[in-house]
């Protein structure tokens, strides 16, 4: 009983008061906290008065302090029981009847404590020891104290078994605090006193109350458990170790002492002590390992290697690009390794639920409204750096209610570039335990990586869907185009048919008009006045032009739809040229123009469709006549060269400008200004048709012209 004891007692006293103050300060309105504060005050008082009682002094003083100890400890059992009953709630919810009984017991015990009924007398012994003579009330004390404490135990065990998560751990802490405190106090204040016959360790007893006060305070005050878990585990390990060793030592000493009782001497005591010291020295390490393994098994059943698991997750994320297998595999790993009951990914788009991947959760998990509440909370949650929401750590409120309804224990926000892309929600642990710091740390590290992986996956998915849509669109468009194309083809065919039929129907009456006018002009001219002759001549020319127009249209339509059929025959070009000359004779005479036909070899034969070649001649000669001044000569020259016959139709007209040359053979091209526009006009199709016919016949056509010097149209045809 020296300085050491004083320090230990002082320390215990102060720590107890500090813990009580912390608990009370943490939430003064909570009855759990209040009761704990009361308990710590009792424990602190016990520590200090116990110390006073143990101090050397006269018997009366010592007896007084013993009685004071009894007084202050008399409500200990009751307070412990009440604390266990309402723990960890804030409200005081013990029935009045029960409370009255408890009050009565405590009151009676307290009153008895100060009377000789509890301890009749105290007798000083050597070595500053003392012995007490208990009175009958000691039984009351024992019964009330042990009974209420046992009841507290029963309540706690019941609660522990029925609870899960953080609550479960809180009860566990409470229980452990109780167990250690009582066991250790038993060792120091009972085993030592009874078996060793010494009270020199009794002063330590109250120190062990620190376990109880500390554990309960921690259970109430602290939020997350990993760090304390390790502390608790190590504390438990060493406490158990000390207890076991103490028993071995005490029991060994006792047993061997009994055996060697006859030869009780300094030497034998030395031998025993040495022997036990050796036993302890050798058994310390194996024992420690053994106990550690047991405690680890109890506290760390869900242990996993975070680094290894992170590596595994990384591989999963690297090898899965499709969102479904990725999320499924991640959830599977989380559930298996962290021993979680269920998990789900809720992926968001513009703050709304976009897709959901779940394992174990059923239905919608969260209503739309609840999800919005949660999303808002997570987005605004700037307090927590990691943003992870843990159900157990939330104060009662809207969010906690939402999570409780959905059976969600943990919400991990997944963000990319500060934008919330989804939530990983996890259910409670299968073991009923609470998520510890290691779990939360693990999820914290995993979250950003997971966010990136999921976003990549979503992007990929989007591109994939876009591709599919695009393909569908293209197919649809192609189908449309095909349909439109088909329709166009049909319409084109209809147009050709229409032109074909129309032209036929038009030509028959026009042929009649033209022929009858011809008859009047040529067979009955004597009946005409010069005026009517002139008029009918114009009717004749106009009807002729109309027929040619219809023919040209028909020809173009046939050329473009590829329906021109050639009937190649052998014939002499010179004959055809002479025919043309004869045909145009009348018109030549009108304009006083002349046509000369010449051939290098009069026998030049070609293989071609005569009618088409005739049209070519007619067009070219007709043009020359049309665009040449009156009285000018026109020549047709026929020659042969390298398998081709060549026909040159020359005139002495004004010629064609360079700009016009290039578009001469195009459809509806009318040469501007280069020629005197003839009254009969043209369709603008003549040279186009001419070119097509020449080329269809296997020849070529071109033009040589110079302004003021006339034009030369030259075409070739394969020789027969």
């Amino acid at each position: 009983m020296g300085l050491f004891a004083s320090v230990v007692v002082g320390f215990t006293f102060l720590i107890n008061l500090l813990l009580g103050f912390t608990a009370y300060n943490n939430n003064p309105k909570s009855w759990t906290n209040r009761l704990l504060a009361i308990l710590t005050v009792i424990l602190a008082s016990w520590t200090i008065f116990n110390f006073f009682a143990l101090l050397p002094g006269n018997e009366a003083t010592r007896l007084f302090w013993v009685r004071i100890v009894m007084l202050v400890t008399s409500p200990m059992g009751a307070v412990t029981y009440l604390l266990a009953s309402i723990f960890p709630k804030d409200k005081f919810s013990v029935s009045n009847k029960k409370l009255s009984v408890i009050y009565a017991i405590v009151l009676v015990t307290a009153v008895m404590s100060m009377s000789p009924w509890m301890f009749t007398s105290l007798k000083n012994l050597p070595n500053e020891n003392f012995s007490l003579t208990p009175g009958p009330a000691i039984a009351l004390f024992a019964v009330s104290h042990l009974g209420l404490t046992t009841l507290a135990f029963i309540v706690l065990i019941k609660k522990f078994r029925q609870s899960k998560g953080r609550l479960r751990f809180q009860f566990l802490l409470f229980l452990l605090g109780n167990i250690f405190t009582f066991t250790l106090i038993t060792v120091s204040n009972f085993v030592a006193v009874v078996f060793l016959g010494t009270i020199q360790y009794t002063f330590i007893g109250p120190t062990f109350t620190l376990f109880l006060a500390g554990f309960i305070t921690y259970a109430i005050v602290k939020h997350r458990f990993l760090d304390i878990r390790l502390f608790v585990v190590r504390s438990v390990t060493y406490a158990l170790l000390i207890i076991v060793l103490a028993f071995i030592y005490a029991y060994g000493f006792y047993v061997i002492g009994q055996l060697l009782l006859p030869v009780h001497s300094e030497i034998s005591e030395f031998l025993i002590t040495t022997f036990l010291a050796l036993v302890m020295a050798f058994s310390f390490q194996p024992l420690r390992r053994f106990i550690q393994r047991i405690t680890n098994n109890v506290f760390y059943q869900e242990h996993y290697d975070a680094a290894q698991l992170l590596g595994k997750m990384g591989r999963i994320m690297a090898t899965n690009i499709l969102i479904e297998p990725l999320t499924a595999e991640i959830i599977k790993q989380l559930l298996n390794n962290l021993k979680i009951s269920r998990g789900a990914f809720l992926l968001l788009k513009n703050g709304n639920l976009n897709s959901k991947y779940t394992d174990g959760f059923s239905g919608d998990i969260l209503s739309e409204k609840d999800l919005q509440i949660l999303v808002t909370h997570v987005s605004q949650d700037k307090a927590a750096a990691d943003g992870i929401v843990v159900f157990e750590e939330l104060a009662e409120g809207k969010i906690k209610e939402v999570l409780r309804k959905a059976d969600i224990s943990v919400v991990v926000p997944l963000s990319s570039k500060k934008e919330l892309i989804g939530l990983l929600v996890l259910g409670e642990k299968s073991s009923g335990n609470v998520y510890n710091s290691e779990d939360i740390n693990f999820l914290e590290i995993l979250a950003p990586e997971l966010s990136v992986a999921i976003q990549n996956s979503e992007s990929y998915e989007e591109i994939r869907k876009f591709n599919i849509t695009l393909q569908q669109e293209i197919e649809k468009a192609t189908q449309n185009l095909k349909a439109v194309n088909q329709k166009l083809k049909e319409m084109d065919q209809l147009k050709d048919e229409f032109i074909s039929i129309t032209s036929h129907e038009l030509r028959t009456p026009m042929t009649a008009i033209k022929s009858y006018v011809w008859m009047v002009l040529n067979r009955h001219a004597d009946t005409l006045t010069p005026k009517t002759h002139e008029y009918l001549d114009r009717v004749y020319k106009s009807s002729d032009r109309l027929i040619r127009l219809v023919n040209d249209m028909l020809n173009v339509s046939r050329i473009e739809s590829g329906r021109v059929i050639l009937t190649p025959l052998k014939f002499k070009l010179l004959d055809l040229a002479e025919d043309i000359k004869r045909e145009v004779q009348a018109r030549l005479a009108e304009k006083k123009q002349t046509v000369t036909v010449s051939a290098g070899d009069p026998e030049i034969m070609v293989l071609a469709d005569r009618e088409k070649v005739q049209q070519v001649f007619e067009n070219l000669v007709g043009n020359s006549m049309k665009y040449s001044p009156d009285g000018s000569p026109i020549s047709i020259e026929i020659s042969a060269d390298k398998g081709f016959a060549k026909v040159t139709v020359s005139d002495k007209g004004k010629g064609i400008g360079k700009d016009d040359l290039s578009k001469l053979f195009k459809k509806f091209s009318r040469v501007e200004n280069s020629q005197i526009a003839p009254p009969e006009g043209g369709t603008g199709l003549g040279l186009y048709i001419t070119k097509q016919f020449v080329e269809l016949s296997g020849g070529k056509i071109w033009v040589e012209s110079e302004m003021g010097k006339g034009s030369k149209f030259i075409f070739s045809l394969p020789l027969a």
Partner: protein
Amino acid sequence: MDNGTNAGPVNLAKKILVVEDEQYLRDLYVELLKEDGYEVASAIDGEIAYDLITKNSYDLVLLDLVMPRMPGIALLKKLSDQDHLRKQKLKIVVLTNLGQDTVIAEAISFGVRGYIIKSDVTPDKILSEVKYYLAQP
């Protein structure tokens, strides 16, 4: 030639059949040829023409191709099947319009002597063509 009793430039003896469904054109051709001194018969479709051809003999047939009842090609086919073309050494010149290449080609395959595109020719030209074909052996 078989009934060409009066040889020479006078065409009185030459018999020509005009097969044409359009009345105005048919009248025109008939009148024109008659004025030129030919003996002219006419038919408004292939069936009548067939009757006439099988019952009479003609030096030349001017045959329109597009007709409502038995078009020109059908008549040619029927005549060909009955071997009249070869037996009578019938000279047929097709009257046609532009844009009927396939039909013309088909007509040529039946051995017609030539074709005249109605809209492109003047009555004069028709007469010269008729003269040209009649003069051929």
